[in-house]
């Protein structure tokens, strides 16, 4: 049976944070295919009953952080409670402490959510940016999110990448001139993110979304 068929019953309640950016439709459909009941919400009160939280994201770091400002405290609380938090693309970059992107844009130091200590940095001059297209995932260590996807391809669109202070935060990496983190996670393994778009990464992406939903369901 094709894995793209929608499951018959939902496994977990997932809140997708709507902070006014980007196309949430694909990520929502992807999560639904993966067995989640998805609520798109801009109300932090919805985090309380969630089995998991998704931070989507397209756009610039400082704008993203500005829009995510009201969610900073509620997200920190959810993370402290051990609620799984999944950042996608810019949503992943926001999990770190800061980003060069804000510096480059002349916006000074813009604070990230700081769940994973480190900084987002730009690809070297010699590389075509954005890094756009399908590239290979090299799993570096065990994490439920990446089960079954080592060596598979995912769809990326980005010019900056995460550079966590602790090497162990890197769950999977990808080669684009440098070997950069494609999947990162905090020490507890409950806050994590993918630089690529799982909702645009075909079967591999759906596997990751399913892994996420199952991880949420087990907690």
């Amino acid at each position, binding site marked *: 049976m*094709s894995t*793209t068929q929608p499951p018959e019953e939902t496994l977990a309640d997932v809140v997708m944070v709507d902070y006014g950016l980007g*196309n949430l*439709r*694909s990520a929502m*459909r*992807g999560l639904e*295919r993966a067995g989640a009941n998805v609520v798109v919400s801009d109300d932090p009160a919805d985090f309380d009953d969630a089995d998991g939280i998704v931070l989507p994201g*397209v*756009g610039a770091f400082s704008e993203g952080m500005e829009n995510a400002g009201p969610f900073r405290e509620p997200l920190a609380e959810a993370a402290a409670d051990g609620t799984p938090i999944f950042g996608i693309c810019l949503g992943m970059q926001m999990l770190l402490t800061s980003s060069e992107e804000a510096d480059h844009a002349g916006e000074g130091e813009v604070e990230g959510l700081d769940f994973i200590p480190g900084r987002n940095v730009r690809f070297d001059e010699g590389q*075509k940016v*954005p*890094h*756009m*297209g*399908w*590239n*290979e995932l090299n799993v570096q260590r065990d994490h439920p999110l990446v089960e079954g996807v080592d060596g598979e*391809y995912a*769809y990326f*669109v980005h010019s900056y990448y995460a550079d966590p202070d602790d090497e162990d935060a890197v769950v999977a990496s990808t*080669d*684009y001139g440098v070997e950069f983190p494609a999947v990162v996670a905090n020490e507890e393994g409950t806050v994590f993110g993918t630089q690529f778009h799982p*909702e*645009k*990464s*075909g*079967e591999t*992406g*759906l596997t990751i979304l399913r892994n996420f939903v199952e991880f949420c369901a087990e907690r």
Partner: protein
Amino acid sequence: MLTKRIIPCIDVDLDEDGNPAVYTGVNFEDLKYTGDPVEMAKLYNEAGADEFVFLDITASAEGRETMLDTVSKVADEVFIPLTVGGGIRTRDDIKETLRAGADKVSINTAALQNPDLIEEGARSFGSQCIVISVDARRRYDEAGEHYAEVDGESCWFECTVKGGREGTGVDVIEWAREAESRGAGELFINSIDADGTKDGYDIPLTKAVCDNVSTPVIASSGCGGPEDMYEVFTEAGADAGLAASIFHFDEYTIQDVKEYLDERDVPVRL
């Protein structure tokens, strides 16, 4: 390693009953009914396409609502990047199309007429979703700026509108550079000369564009099989190859093309 992308494309028009349907050109002129857009999108998603392009060829205001509805249905079935083009003229058109579920919009004539639209779109939605599409035609006169050698003759490439029926006098290479500097995230290069021939992509055209910009280039028009994809990747330097009829009429599967490329060391997602 970043892979070369294989992209099927559908041209969608309204049928006699006003329902969206895919039509494919056969022998330059005749458009043949090919299938239901949502069903075709679903099949290509499962067949390993790297992206999917949906072109609205109705070019009518009445058709637009229906088309956006169809785009949403396609977006719900496709878990790969979706580009939508045709009839996108304003920032609001871009917004509506993205909201319907497209990841990128392809803009052609409207960008030539109003280049500021590229900046507006890139600033509001990000460069990654602004694809500039060009219908190029070879011209063998002195009016161009960048010349290429084709079969021993010198020619330049002109941007055309109305499906190649009308020239604009604008040199494709100049336009490609300008579009890039204004924030285009990708260039979609069609060739009026190669379109429908199945004799291969316009290599001199594609190569000239690739050599002059660093934005990813999608080569289109003329693909007759895997060897044409190989040629456009290795000789012209394209980042993606687009094809319609070879896939729609089951002459080759996406897998056939990718295996052919993989055997010849072109990186693809298998």
